[in-house]
């Protein structure tokens, strides 16, 4: 037994050599930091390091749930994630279906090219473009001003912040999400459309009875992934857009963690507890979503 394993290892020695950098990366930069979650149950003494710092049981979690800012961030994250599911999901599907209805291939390509471009631009740049548009001296306010309306403080108004988050992320990502559905549509067997055509189906009926059922599976998988990320809320976007004026509606768990650890001086132990709380919640959400989709007869992720 040992001999065959040794033989196997030798036989595949080049493969193991090629795999080595990948394994090293995942161990050092993904798994080594994972042991750091122990810190959620400890109080960090910098000199001692994580392993030798003293255990404090659930104290960090107790301190956390006593923070009103934490709960505010928790509910904000849920609201923003739910909003994303409700708005961005259907819009991406509708956009894909609309692009698919364009008969001329070149025009179809053109639309795809334009709509996916913002996906490749960082949120830093997009937020710069948005400041240019929505700032107090921004384009939109200049237009309002020249029309005789009052200037508006779009970016510091807590009641507008979530709307701005949703609209800007639709603007940036909807084209990219649509591409995934378009790829799925491209894979549909043309005979299905022919059959529908022969049966006298119109465009709308073809959409409902051929196209939609064919992309439902893709939508389900994307939905599961989105639900599994529900506690993330889009750090890149919010971190680049928000300011103290909109914390009440815009502060999410990730931005709260960052600030609490690096600016507000909350202990690293408590901040790690937030991270662990979030990761566990994401994980359970992912599994629940997967379970539900499977129960409903769809194809799950795992």
């Amino acid at each position, binding site marked *: 037994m040992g001999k065959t394993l040794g033989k196997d290892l030798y036989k595949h020695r080049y493969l193991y050599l090629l795999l080595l950098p990948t394994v090293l990366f995942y161990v050092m*930069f993904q798994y080594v930091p994972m042991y750091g979650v122990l810190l959620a149950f400890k109080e960090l003494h910098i000199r001692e390091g994580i392993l030798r710092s003293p255990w404090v049981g659930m104290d960090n979690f107790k301190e956390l749930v006593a923070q009103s800012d934490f709960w505010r961030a928790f509910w904000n994250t849920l609201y923003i994630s739910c909003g994303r599911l409700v708005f961005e999901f259907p819009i991406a599907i509708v956009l894909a279906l609309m692009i698919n209805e*364009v008969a001329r291939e070149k025009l179809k390509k053109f639309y795809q090219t334009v709509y996916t471009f913002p996906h490749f631009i960082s949120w830093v740049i997009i937020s710069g473009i948005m400041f240019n548009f929505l700032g107090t001296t921004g384009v939109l306010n200049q237009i309002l001003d020249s029309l005789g309306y009052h200037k508006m403080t779009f970016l510091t108004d807590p009641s507008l912040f979530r709307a701005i988050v949703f609209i800007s992320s639709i603007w940036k990502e909807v084209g990219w999400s649509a591409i995934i559905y378009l790829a799925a549509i491209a894979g549909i067997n043309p005979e299905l459309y*022919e059959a529908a055509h022969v049966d006298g189906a119109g465009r709308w009926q073809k959409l409902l009875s051929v196209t939609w059922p064919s992309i439902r599976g893709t939508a389900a*998988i994307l939905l599961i992934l989105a639900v599994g990320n529900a506690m993330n809320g889009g750090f890149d976007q919010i971190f680049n857009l928000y300011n103290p004026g909109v914390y009440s509606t815009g502060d999410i768990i990730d931005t709260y*963690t960052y600030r609490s650890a690096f600016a507000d001086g909350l202990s690293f132990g408590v901040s790690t507890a*937030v991270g662990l709380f979030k990761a566990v919640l994401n994980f359970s959400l992912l599994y629940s979503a997967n379970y539900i989709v499977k129960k409903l007869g769809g194809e799950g992720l795992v």
Partner: protein
Amino acid sequence: MEPITKTAAVSIQAAGRRSRFSPADLIIHIVLILLTLMTILPFYNVILMSFSSTVAVSKQLVYLVPTVFDLSAYSYIFHEPRFLKALMVTVFVTGVGTAVNMLVTVTGAYVLSKSGFPGKKIVMGGIIFTMFFNGGLIPFYLTMKNFHLVNNLLVMVLPVAVNTFYMIICIAFFRTLPAGLEESAKIDGANDLQVLYKIVVPISMPMIATITLFYAVDRWNEWWLGVLFMQNVNLLPLQALLRELLTNYQQVLASITTSVRVQDSDLQPEMLKMAVLVVSTLPIACLYPFLQKYFAKGVMIGSIKG
């Protein structure tokens, strides 16, 4: 029922579409054109502002029509040491980072696309698990500190050496390659390294180009690791500097050594911000047409098999 050949049916359908331009088509086209304008105009406006003269910007005349053409914002940033340093950091991170990304991803994916050697399943499971669970921000920060990566340019390369999503796209692609190619090379006495380098990589060029460009865009856009780990401002990447410039303009200006020049000329802050914005976007805009050709397929594989 009369059997209809595939081509005949397609041409019936195509003919039907071409002859009748329905109200539905009209609505679809109007919506899509509006969306196109909404996507393009913000970029157009930024470019315009970065080029337009100081007077025009300060009088707020710049919306859509170019007024006076002025390159002073660009000439300023390209004479500004802090900007040039940030640009060099970003070029370094993009070059070295992308090379590391591809080396690790392609070799790893090639091995993991093969079946039947001990340990493969464990490695695969370990990789997938990291997509759904991680230690979080603080443990990550402390680990990088232990590795002495604070104020080290490698912090923008090593912790992001593999993107699991791209890795999976790669694995799925390699699985589609015909096994016969490799077998014949093996019979000719090639080892796995030679097969990968001489056969698999050359025939996978479209996929490799796509993933390279994905990685290059990610490295170029890096700002977060810079913000988190670079206390030395000379090591900030371009996007982090831009971020500072956008949120904290006055302070950045004060810290810039040659700020005298800004006061001399009457450069508007907006022009400067917009010029940095354009320079940070330009390389992606240039790469994009090449990238665009391939990515739909790549995304498809990744999303379905993921």
